[in-house]
């Protein structure tokens, strides 16, 4: 593997910001007025005060005055051109807030239209995740149908904190519509979680606890999606965990497999071990990558996981826990593995072609 080939890069988690002002022209007049008059609800318990304003690197505020991620030219300069990024996947975080369902749907539709016009059309290196009002299955399925054939949308975006565990049947029409069109579900950290604390033991006091607790939300979704038999119902469904971390997964699967052997009769629809479903149906982005004290421990972590062909490089630009393409993957990893994580796996999953 030559060093030159390591210059190829797909970044699977870039956050473009669509401000309310930018969204307005794409909203129907009725919802523009609703938005001005009533606006969006707050998220209970979600937004812990973060050390960095806008949860962003302090050097990512564009000179044009908007918030980080709102200026395509600046994003080009600071990310796409600064590293040899062939393709970047946008995950814009317009959180669906469980208000009037048609308002949620209108916000998602407007954001998708805005992404096409202002991000995907002018910048061919970009792809985007499709926003849907995922708590209302018929409206979400309609949004998937609207854009399902536009391959610039590479997945359907759902936050990791849904109001019920994602494997429950309420969400099946959304999962099925995505699977039918070959679109993975990109499960990105965040969401309002129906008002539940991020922890299984109540509300933590510090952002450090909240940030470390991100993986708890994915643990709940992993267990739910597998135990509910979702992958028997939708054998083509693919799930991408975005910003979930990696290190916790193998031990969780060991525990889940062990308990499944004892309790198998409770979930008779599962034909495979839980870990087999996971390794077939799940992909994982890298950021924020674990930084074990010894490089050999990093290698061991990937060996335990056994999913080197399902790992996807992500930077999380412009957020403060950004991973640099130069440093996220330790050089102890063989060049072939790094090449797969940085480029090949994403191309295979999303059907991307880089030059």
């Amino acid at each position, binding site marked *: 593997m030559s060093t030159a080939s390591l210059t190829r890069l797909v970044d699977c988690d870039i956050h473009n910001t669509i401000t309310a002002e930018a969204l307005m022209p794409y909203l129907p007049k009725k919802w523009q007025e609703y938005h001005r008059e009533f606006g969006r609800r707050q998220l209970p318990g979600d937004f812990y005060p973060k050390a*960095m304003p806008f949860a962003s690197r302090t050097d990512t505020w564009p000179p044009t005055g908007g918030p980080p991620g709102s200026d395509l030219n600046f994003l080009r300069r600071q990310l796409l051109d600064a590293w040899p990024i062939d393709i970047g996947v946008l995950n814009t975080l317009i959180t669906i807030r469980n208000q009037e369902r048609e308002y949620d749907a209108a916000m998602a539709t407007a954001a998708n239209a805005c992404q096409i016009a202002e991000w995907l059309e002018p910048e061919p290196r970009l792809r985007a995740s499709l926003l849907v009002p995922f708590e209302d299955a018929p409206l979400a399925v309609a949004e998937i149908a609207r854009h399902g054939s536009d391959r610039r949308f590479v997945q359907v975006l759902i936050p990791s904190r849904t109001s019920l565990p994602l494997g429950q049947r309420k969400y099946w029409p959304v999962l099925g519509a995505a699977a039918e069109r070959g679109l993975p579900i990109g499960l990105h950290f965040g969401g309002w979680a129906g008002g539940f604390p991020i922890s299984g033991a109540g509300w933590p006091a510090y952002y450090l606890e909240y940030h470390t607790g991100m993986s708890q939300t994915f643990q709940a979704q992993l267990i739910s999606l597998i135990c509910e038999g979702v992958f028997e119902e939708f054998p083509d469904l693919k799930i991408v965990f975005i910003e979930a971390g990696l290190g916790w997964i193998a031990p969780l699967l060991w525990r889940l497999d062990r308990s499944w052997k004892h309790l198998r009769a409770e979930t008779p629809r599962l034909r495979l071990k839980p870990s087999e479903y996971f390794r077939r149906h799940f992909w994982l982005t890298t950021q924020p990558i674990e930084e074990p004290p010894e490089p050999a421990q990093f290698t061991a972590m990937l060996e335990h996981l056994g999913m080197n062909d399902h790992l996807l490089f992500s930077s999380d630009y412009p957020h*403060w826990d950004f991973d640099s393409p*130069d440093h996220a993957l330790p050089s102890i990893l063989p060049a072939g593995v790094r090449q797969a994580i940085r480029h090949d796996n994403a191309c295979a999953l999303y059907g991307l072609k880089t030059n």
Partner: protein
Amino acid sequence: MTKHVVGTVAEIPPGGRKLVDVAGRSIGIFNLGGEFFALRNRCPHQGGALCEGPLGSCISSAGPGHYEMSRGGEILRCPWHGWEFDVRTGQSWFDPKGVRVKNYEVAVVAGKNLKPPAPDLVPGPYVAETYPVSIEQNYLVVEL
């Protein structure tokens, strides 16, 4: 080791900083209450432009509800991930022995002493003889 003139004392007030390029390296020069310190402008973590980050205090706690703030304006936080470094030493706060950013000595040299012959001095952007008026100033010299 070569000496490089990187600026004048007057242009970096206390609490201020200046980013300079010296021999291909980006370096931050800081003025802490009249003392000058230089750090490599590259975080040892993931390469962020460390010297462009905010300067703050060292906060410590001896127990619940107790907070001590010290070293105001002397702790540099990386703009990317917030890793903290002591501007005076380059040591990180969380692992002072294991993680540090390269630092350099900064000397204050009177303009008249910068005049040739000074064979070990590489003229920087503030070569003294091109500014005859300011030859009485004090200059900042970094050696690396």
